[in-house]
């Protein structure tokens, strides 16, 4: 070609330590891979990026920190204004935003960086990759939120249990705290919902975000959609207070994600007289169903669309 004289460099470089085919390092040949490989891979992916660690740390700090502040504020009052473990809600309202962001980012960062092409060329079984992502993400966020909610619940129960119930909760009791007959306690059902229930709820919300991220492939798009999904029904319901629209407003409020979370803390938006009837599990089930539907759509999307 054009540089015929480039003789010196035309000679191949000195053969390296491993010269040819035969010197390939002997190692067990694995014919095919399975989900376990993909899970290991996704675990490496998620833990090797600082933003994951930061986001989870922020979530943890928000939940526990705000939980502690709430407990301090509540402790100073004469009565137990909220269910004993209910104060965890405020931290988790913010904390869930971190999980949503993380859920969206887990998928969309692959698209925005181009990593997805590398991943898909290494493992063309796209559904397997998505499954592994979902499993790893769900497990990680569940464990992290469970740690945060449990710690918060312990703090609250230690600081607030035994406070007299507010007289407003029981009209028979006078204004004098000392006359209150009932003190605040947390039932085992309340414990279960405020820890495991809330953690499942938030981890599912994260999983939903992951599915939405897969569908939209855009970080701002995914986060905005999820924020809208979480906040808008409740906000809109506030504007539907007129007679004609009140029913719709109530339904929106009742089924809003914020109410789902709130109910698990035994503080549903619709005040009920009988606290024992408050049950967060149905709304959690609803979220699980929505998440499952979104995941199915995500599977369909990822396996048919060009990367």
């Amino acid at each position, binding site marked *: 070609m*054009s*540089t015929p*004289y*480039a*003789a*010196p*460099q035309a000679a191949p*470089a*000195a*053969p*390296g*330590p*491993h*010269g*040819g085919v035969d*010197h*390939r*390092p002997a190692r067990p040949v694995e014919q095919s891979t399975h989900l376990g490989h993909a899970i290991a891979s996704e675990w490496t992916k998620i833990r090797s990026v600082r933003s994951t660690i930061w986001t989870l740390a922020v979530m943890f700090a928000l939940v526990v920190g705000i939980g502690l502040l709430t407990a301090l504020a509540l402790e100073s009052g004469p009565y137990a204004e909220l269910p004993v473990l209910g104060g965890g809600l405020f931290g988790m309202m913010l904390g869930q935003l971190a999980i949503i962001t993380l859920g969206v980012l887990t998928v969309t960062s692959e698209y925005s960086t181009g990593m997805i092409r590398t991943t898909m060329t290494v493992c063309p079984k796209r559904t397997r990759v998505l499954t592994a992502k979902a499993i790893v993400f769900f497990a990680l966020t569940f464990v992290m939120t469970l740690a945060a909610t449990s710690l918060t619940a312990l703090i609250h129960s230690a600081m607030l249990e035994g406070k007299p119930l507010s007289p407003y909760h029981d009209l028979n009791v006078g204004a004098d705290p000392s006359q209150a007959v009932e003190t605040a306690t947390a039932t085992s059902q309340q414990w279960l919902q405020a820890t495991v229930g809330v953690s499942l709820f938030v981890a599912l919300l994260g999983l939903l975000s992951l599915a939405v991220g897969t569908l939209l492939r855009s970080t701002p798009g995914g986060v905005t959609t999820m924020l809208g999904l979480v906040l808008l029904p409740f906000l809109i319901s506030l504007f539907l207070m007129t007679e004609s629209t009140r029913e719709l407003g109530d339904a929106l409020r009742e089924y809003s994600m914020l109410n789902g979370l709130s109910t698990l803390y035994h503080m549903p938006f619709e005040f009920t007289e009988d606290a024992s009837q408050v049950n967060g599990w149905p709304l959690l089930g609803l979220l699980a169903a929505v998440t499952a539907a979104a995941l199915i759509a995500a599977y369909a999307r990822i396996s048919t669309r060009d990367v």
Partner: protein
Amino acid sequence: MIELDRLTKRYGTTVAVDQLTCTVQPGVVTGFLGPNGAGKSTTMRMMLGLDRPTAGDVRIDGEHYDRLRDPLNHIGALLEAKAVHPGRTAYNHLTVLAQSNGIPQKRVPEVLDLVGLGSVAKKRPKGFSLGMGQRLGIASALLGDPKILMFDEPVNGLDPEGIHWIRNLMKYLASEGKTVFVSSHLMSEMALTAEHLIVIGRGRLLADTSMREFIKENSRSYVRLRTPEPERMRDVLATAGLTPVATEDGALEVDSVESDRLGELAAEHGLVLHELSPQQASLEEAFMQLTAEAVQYHAHGTGKGA
């Protein structure tokens, strides 16, 4: 003209550019070479006032960059292809830059046509390929019709047609008396484009010389001979005090001699020549020689195991 005077940049304890002193002259294409991590980009960024020198000075036509009023009329630079808002059309992108430097609006369609983007002027660069982005970058460098042009890896992403075009463009700009400063890793490209070379390694100046000199000094040059009577040729050469080396394909290679003299020798002795070609090493080879120990990320000589 770009003058660097003991230009230095440190990031913490690492010295990216170390006391670099040199001048880029107008009228020729000056190539700027160095291995990865040699400090080329940092140097170019300091020239444009994007990074601040830790010490030393760089002047554009005698002025500090940030003293230039309308700098695009003095110096145009292509630093990276996609320094563009993906949502702003190519036309508007150039308009923004033109307005900031008081360049007439009609110049915008002119440069767009010049780089071959006229047909996509109203499209948003979101969908541009790397090559198109590069062309847009080149268009913005040419916008102010500056006397000094700086290109960092201009052929990146361009297709062969584009590569050919930018090569001729740079030569033309230099022939118009402009200062053209080009960095590239592609030695074969550089060899076709640049006349003068500035080579740095580990932030220091390694060479500031003409292309010809550079190749001559850093590699072997020889003449290749081919003749039906190689034995007699050897004798003739030996008598003249020259030692030819035979190559596998039957040619003779003679070091450190001009082809002119060999032609005369052959004619004198009535020798028929089937080839008499002066050979020079490639720029790549010369560059390798010079920068051998200034390379940072040394790959292993083998792709084995692979």
